[in-house]
């Protein structure tokens, strides 16, 4: 009894319900026998992974769906042991190097070489090469990416890489130039509604068109999120109508509280209270940029139009800082302080 998202995940390229042209292209690529390195990018919840799995199935047949998790131990140069999980079928490997943080280079070097230096064992396999899927490729360090670039050329007879990323911004140009860039756009709201409807029908749930539309909007065109929200709504309500409220995820609810607190009082003491909540969010693994973004958009709704540009500017400023710095709370707090000051000074119509 898995969740809907995974239960109704399409298994083949044909079953994909949107971006049909992209599906077509992938299919022809898979059948061409000259499969290039891919760099698949797009926002989360757009269907990248699903498409890749479908493409792999297209490449190798159903055998690729028999996957297992393999646990490997790598040793870094400082003889530290890293435990690393690999999802693998006989035809492909799926790795997430960013799991090991700064040591991803070790993994990339050792693992890829090992894989690349051996040929496909299964003589009956349709392709002579194996595929390595690298998740979160945009989180690879520069070192790891550099280690990757030569491997891609040198071992191309045995190895194809599929890189998955949310954006290509963090991927160095040499790699971009060695891969075929495949953009998977987020589904439109209509497409999401359609998916929701099909799923609803499959589950035998009563349909509420308006609710679906709202979910589609709320989800930010993230299909995974939409499906999860859809399920959450249905799980928490026996009967859903167009008016049924969509429960926000826990962290979003907390950020909403933070926004309310910030609006209610502008004092250093309040910043302290907000800091506690921000710490709570951060320590519960909500990424700081997500916090900042969500918070900004919650605040934007509550302030005067004249201020919005300024607030957005500062938000962007501190988001950049978050990326540049290492102690995220400092920047989040600085944003809160800045916001309070800007707002207060606007309300009082004066500045120092």
């Amino acid at each position, binding site marked *: 009894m898995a969740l809907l998202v995974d239960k109704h995940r399409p298994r083949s390229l044909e079953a994909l319900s949107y971006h049909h042209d992209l599906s077509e292209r992938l299919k022809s690529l898979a059948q061409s026998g000259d499969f290039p390195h891919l760099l698949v990018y797009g926002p989360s919840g757009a269907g990248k992974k699903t498409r890749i799995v479908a493409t792999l199935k297209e490449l190798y047949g159903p055998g690729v769906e028999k996957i297992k998790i393999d646990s490997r131990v790598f040793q870094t140069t400082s003889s530290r042991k890293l435990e690393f999980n690999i999802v693998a079928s006989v035809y492909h490997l799926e790795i997430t190097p960013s799991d090991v943080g700064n040591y991803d280079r070790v993994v990339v070097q050792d693992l890829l070489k090992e894989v690349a230096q051996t040929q496909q064992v299964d003589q009956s396999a349709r392709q002579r090469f194996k595929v390595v899927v690298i998740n979160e490729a945009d989180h690879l360090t520069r070192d790891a990416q550099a280690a990757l670039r030569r491997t891609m050329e040198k071992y191309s007879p045995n190895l194809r890489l599929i890189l998955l990323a949310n954006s290509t911004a963090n991927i160095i140009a040499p790699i971009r130039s060695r891969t075929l860039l495949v953009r998977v756009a987020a589904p439109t709201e209509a497409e999401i509604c359609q998916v929701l409807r099909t799923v609803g029908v499959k589950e035998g749930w009563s349909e509420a068109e308006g609710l679906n539309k709202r979910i589609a909007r709320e989800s930010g065109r993230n299909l995974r999120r939409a499906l999860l929200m859809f399920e959450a709504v249905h799980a928490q309500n026996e009967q859903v109508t167009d008016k049924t409220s969509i429960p926000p995820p826990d962290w979003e609810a907390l950020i909403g*509280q933070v926004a309310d607190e910030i609006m209610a009082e502008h004092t250093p003491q309040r*910043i302290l209270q907000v800091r506690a909540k921000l710490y709570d969010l951060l320590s*519960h693994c909500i990424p700081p940029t997500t916090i900042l973004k969500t918070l900004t958009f919650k605040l934007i709704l509550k302030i005067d139009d004249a201020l919005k540009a300024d607030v957005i500017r500062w938000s962007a400023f501190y988001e950049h800082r978050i990326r540049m710095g290492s*102690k995220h709370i400092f920047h989040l707090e600085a944003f809160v302080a800045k916001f309070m000051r800007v707002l207060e*000074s606007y309300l009082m119509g004066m500045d*120092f």
Partner: protein
Amino acid sequence: MRLQAKAAKAKGRGKRKVVSDSEEEAQVVMPKKSTPKKPNSKKPIKRESPNGEVTTTTDYFASTGKSRPSRSTPTKPKAPSEKKITASTTKNTPAKSTPKPKATPTSRASSRRKAKANYTEPQDDEDDEDDTAFVDKGDDSADDIFAADFKNSRQTKEDKYNKEDDSEEEVAKPKRKGVRAGKPSPLVDQEDQVSAADEDVTMKDTNPDDDFVVPDAKEEIQVNKSINGVKARDRGNTRKRKSADSEVHDEEKDEEEEDFDPPAKKPKSIKPKSPAKPPPAKKPRTSAHKDDVPESREVQEIFDSIPLVRPPTPPAAAAGEPKKFDYRNTGSRSQPAPAAGSKEIPIGAENCLAGLTFVFTGLLDALGRDEGQALIKRYGGKVTGAPSTKTSYVVLGNDAGPKKLETIAKHNIKTINEDGLFELIRRLPANGGDSKAAEKFAEKQQQEAQKVKDMAAEMEKEERRTGGAGGAGGGNAIGARASNGDSASSGKIDNRLWTVKYAPTAPSMMCGNKGQIEKLQTWLRAWPSNAKTHFKKAGKDGSGVFRAVMIHGPPGIGKTTAAHLIAKLEGYDIVESNASDTRSKKLVETGLKGVLDTTSLLGYFAGDGKKVDADKKKLVLIMDEVDGMSAGDRGGVGALAAVCKKTSVPMILICNERKLPKMKPFDYNTYDLPFRKPTTEQVRARMSTICFREGLRMPPNVLDALIEGSRADIRQIINMISTAKLDQETMDFDQGKQMSKAWEKHVILKPWDIVSKILGGGMFAQSSNSTLNDKIELYFNDHEFSSLMLQENYLKTSPTLAASYSGKERALKLLELSDKAAESISDGDLVDRMIHGSQQQWSLMPTHAVFSFVRPASFVAGSQAGHGPTNFTSWLGNNSKQGKLMRFIKEIQGHMRLRASGDRHEIRQQYLPLLWYKLIGELEKQGKDSVKDMIKLMDSYFLTKEDYDAIMELGVGPMDMENVKIDSATKAAFTRLYNQKSHPLPFMKASNVLAPKKASKERPDLEEAIDASDEGEEVVADAANEDEEENLDLKKDKYVRAPPKKAAPKKKAPSKAKGKAKEDLEDELDEDESEEDVKPKKGKGSGRGKATPAAGRGRGRK
């Protein structure tokens, strides 16, 4: 008067000299040069009063002629002149004086000034004339009679100092004089009576003022050379005492009077100068007193408006006249008017705050806290941390601590602000005038000075006794000194270090730790008898069972000295070993062998012509610097500890750090004697003795500064003094501070102290003179924590910069400051990244210090009162919590990976809320009913029970773990049900592999082996065939099954077979399979259930 003075000088130089010497000596002991003047001034008054009692004015004049000479020494003339002025207006001729006082205080002042002018001239003349010979004699007279001419130069210097001081005093005095004039009369009467009653003996005992005391002592030593002078002095002294008494009475009488009293006392102190004046003085004083009364009433009203229980002290009286005294009512804590700009810090009379106790609270406008404290200490006042009934004044600043305010209100302590403090300093006469506090203080100081003299004399004796034989090499100077008794001798021609030279020669001379030294002595004394009983009897203090003693404590407090001293006193011959000897195990064992069983040769031989003393054959082994046994002394500590257990001579071990792990072998083997830092008082007495003997002028407050600065490291203080002695004869407060700062042992501040220091506001106050470098230095006290601590606490202040705003503007200003600080901290983090990130730009540390520490603090620095305690940084805790939860997430994501495609962020943000709802929310709402569905869901995602707990912990806000209330029955049901069933595992973690391996060795059961091998084959087959049904480990069985797998099959198919679980992702298959799988699992589970008992049996058999 002048004539008389001159005449006196001319006549009885010897006498004068004596007196003057005494005074000067007293000065040496006393805080500063200026003090002598004060004493002088006091003395004349006293004399006057006695005269008044006994004789008429004419007699008095005559007597003055006699008495004066003694005081008329160059230094005195100046002081006397001033005093004379005051006295003269009031005292000299009753008739004259009376009119003036009536005229009003201002008129008096003017007259005084004139008088002063006159005086100064004569003084100068005298100085010029006398210059070398006369002055010299006067100053050092006691010593000098014998002493060489060289002193002259010194004396002249002193004179100059005195002059300067006088001038200062003059500036300060005028105000007082008026007050004094009015007050003294009643006091004088009392004094007179008392003085009449008192005799020389009493004088000695009582000597209220240090200055006076010292002279008395000297006089005694000198065998009353000048009877007349002595008598006069005696009277003065007694009077002083009485004056103190009288003061008390006065206080009782009237608050007003009390106000006046202090001045009255001052005149008493002036006694010596103008003996003739006293009788008239009384009358004028009374008159003046009357005149003043109205003023005092006004003052009184001011005071009345302030709820003070205690009557005001001299400063208060002074406050009456002029303008500024801003007494801050405790009730009205309203912020003192923020004095913009830095105020000029007044220069007051020497020791003018003597005997007063101050407490600072809040942030002063112009003074930093430290500066304020230094200022008060410089003038002889005492600063304490918290107000109490003994506090004379609370100096109130902005944002005073509420706690302190409470106490102030409770005890009705007088509060003043900065201006008040400055006023106090400006107006109070030297040595705190006649206030009760000052009197007490003076008394104490006198006693101390007396002690110093006694000690010096003792030392002198000692030296003569011992040094008479050996150290005759000093030449003339030494000889002179010796003959003089206690002369302030310049450095002896003595090549010993001062620390050796002034090493204590009797236990009584040790500073502090008396109890420990006593214990050491009793232990050593009892040692031979203990040895006879084989250390079986513990004795009174339990020291009897120890053959060795361990003295430990910080450096420079006399551990080694004590050990040597006691050993010497107990007649032991000392064998010492310290860090300069190699003390490895071998050497300790062999080297000590020669010592431990032997006796001293001194028991058998003696030097030329000395008797052989059989008692001298006792040996004691002193092992110094035991903790200094380093890597080179391998095994030395252990060997030494072993020796301690069986030694046949007493051993004294000395170390600094007893608690070091390497000192552990000594536990229970040695008798521990912890030495503590002596208190300031304990050290001060000894140090002043040394200063006194070396002729170095070192006022007590300077000494205190040195002692505090060096943390009571006696050795360091002596070294400092001896260094100072090289190029100066005196050391004033600032020099002392400077020196102790330069010699300061670097103390690393704790993070809390760092942050409260930088945020406290003192460092950024306008008046603060701490530089940017000082602030950066502060950061480097703990560069890892200071920025974090600042970040944690920077919002918990009331910034000084926002102090001038109020209402909404203040709110905005506060936000602005917070924002700037936060932005700066944010900047600092970027720098931090460059330092600790891949770039490793460590040279940016100072930049980081500025951005993350100094600059933010510069915005928000201010009082931290009312914002709760300084917290430890919460970043570390939150960071590690984040690390932990991130591990959970990774784990969960790893388990879900076969099903869900999201990365860990997506899992956390999108899956978790729903999973939480479906697992925890449902369980909370529906109780046991939901357990089945829960377990199904968990199994479908390969989530374990640990993951369930992790999900619970990962909730935030509305899903916070704290808010989850699942009753324990439900929880128990869930746990039971969950444990009953078997659950799929996505894979075996490598870490899980190891533990079972061991288990397998324990119980290689046949049945199991078969069972396992079957499975193993399956696994291998799986690995080979790549697809088959998923192998789902049953959790329960994991431990039973796993070992064989790992043992056999895993090695065969290491990488692939390791992770067993394979999943079919096809929808239809999936469902079917999972159902099928579940069944097989259960089957297996039950099968296993059988197997486990078998295992149990297997074990049982074994």
